[in-house]
């Protein structure tokens, strides 16, 4: 399920030159997860709260300091991990839980996690399907979208929140360190192959889902880390996509 929503949101992020945001929000979200462990609140929820705050901060920075947005993002990212390391070492249940959040562990999902992931999937898919035209215009040409009378501010906020939701939910499966890959690599494959926006959306979802399913299966058989397997598989698909697009072009 995350295999559909993460690549889909990732497509919009990559096209808006926000590819780094996945990493940043994941690092900040981890700090939230750590806090959640400390104060005994459902970690994914605290992680989500942190991610949402960070996504607003990033959006505000993107608009105010267009040239220095990258720098601010880098600083927020490091801050997140630094805070996370402090909070994790303050708590008692250090090793096992941390690893599962950093690298993902589909085997330790409990029912709450599954409901959260399902809920996020429904919300994201609903938003994207209902507003696919507007999101297209917003991503392609934000000025033209504003001039057409679309409430650009609200759409930007909506995208930020959806991104935070997807990342927080995906952290449990692929891990915070690799979430960004699930957002960006399917998008990269899709951009290499697609000849229209409609195709781009289809490719991104198909590639994401295929890679996750295949990756989990291989990881299950070979007893490998699921997150790492999925991402390496995605990189393989990217290599093939780029090669194919070169072949088509010549």
């Amino acid at each position, binding site marked *: 399920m995350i295999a559909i929503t993460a690549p889909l949101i990732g497509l919009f992020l990559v096209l808006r030159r926000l590819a780094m945001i996945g990493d940043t929000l994941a690092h900040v979200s981890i700090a939230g997860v750590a806090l959640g462990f400390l104060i005994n609140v459902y970690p994914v929820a605290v992680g989500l709260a942190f991610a949402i705050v960070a996504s607003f901060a990033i959006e505000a920075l993107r608009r105010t300091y267009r040239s220095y947005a990258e720098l601010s993002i880098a600083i927020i990212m490091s801050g997140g991990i630094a805070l996370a390391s402090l909070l994790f070492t303050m708590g008692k249940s250090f090793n096992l839980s941390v690893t599962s959040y950093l690298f993902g562990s589909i085997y330790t999902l409990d029912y709450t996690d599954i409901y959260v992931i399902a809920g996020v999937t429904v919300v994201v898919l609903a938003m994207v399907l209902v*507003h696919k*035209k507007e999101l297209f215009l917003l991503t*392609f*040409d934000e*000025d033209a979208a504003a001039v057409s009378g679309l409430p650009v501010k609200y759409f930007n906020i909506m995208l930020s929140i959806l991104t935070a939701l997807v990342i927080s939910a995906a952290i449990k499966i692929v891990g915070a360190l690799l979430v960004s890959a699930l957002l960006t690599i399917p998008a990269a494959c899709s951009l290499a192959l697609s000849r*229209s926006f409609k195709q781009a959306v289809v490719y991104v979802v198909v590639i994401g889902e295929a890679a996750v399913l295949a990756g989990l299966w291989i990881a299950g058989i070979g007893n490998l880390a699921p997150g790492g397997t999925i991402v390496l598989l995605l990189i393989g698909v990217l290599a093939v996509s780029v090669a194919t697009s070169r072949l088509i072009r010549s």
Partner: protein
Amino acid sequence: MIGTASLPETGCHQEIVRLDGVSFSYDAQPILQDVSFRIMERDFVGLIGSNGAGKTTLLRMIVGLTRPQHGNVTLFGTPAEKFKEWNLIGYVPQRSHFNPLFPATVREVVLSGLYGRKKMFRRMSKSDIGRCEDALGAMKIADLGNKRIGALSGGQQQRVFLARALINNPKLLILDEPLTGIDLETQTNFFQMVKHMHQRHNITFLMVSHDMDMVRSYLGEEPKERVGKLSFYVRHSHDLEDCRGTDLLHSLRKEG
């Protein structure tokens, strides 16, 4: 049609845009100071100025992307902040603004000209798709419909953005530096097309440029008004017998 009762009119011409004492500074550096100007129906206004003179800032204020720090912008008789009928305005932004790697076909880009508040929760209807084909035909790019926008030449891309701006049958068309970055022959063709639209159809133009030559030949040597570093050149058109609106795209297609 526009239903506001208080439209200032002169004969069959209404006031399309009014700027009253518009000022804008960026970081304490004044860019626009006390700019006042009126654009009437069927005017062709060339806004000329060197880079940094404030042309783009002024344009952004007219299309609602920025607010003036002082002064008012009035569109079709309504203050810009309250203006809602954005389908009356077609906007062709500067070409440097879009990402050529974006996977969008020409058809998808032109169709997106119809997306707006009114269509937010609705699907594109058959007549919408039909209008898209009309727009492609009118701009003579019907054969490019399925190509990726990044694969087109500069002049072709310009036509795509123009088709997108025209698909709503706007009464005001705003072009931001449309002649920049394309070769001379394409510039001439493009300007011919725009001149033709101005002369034969009920549409008002505002074109921003830093290039004098092509504009001056149509708009005259002397600007109607000079404000700071900006010059407003105006040419009015009366060539239609009556001032009733016609469907621009259908007429352009018929004219072939």
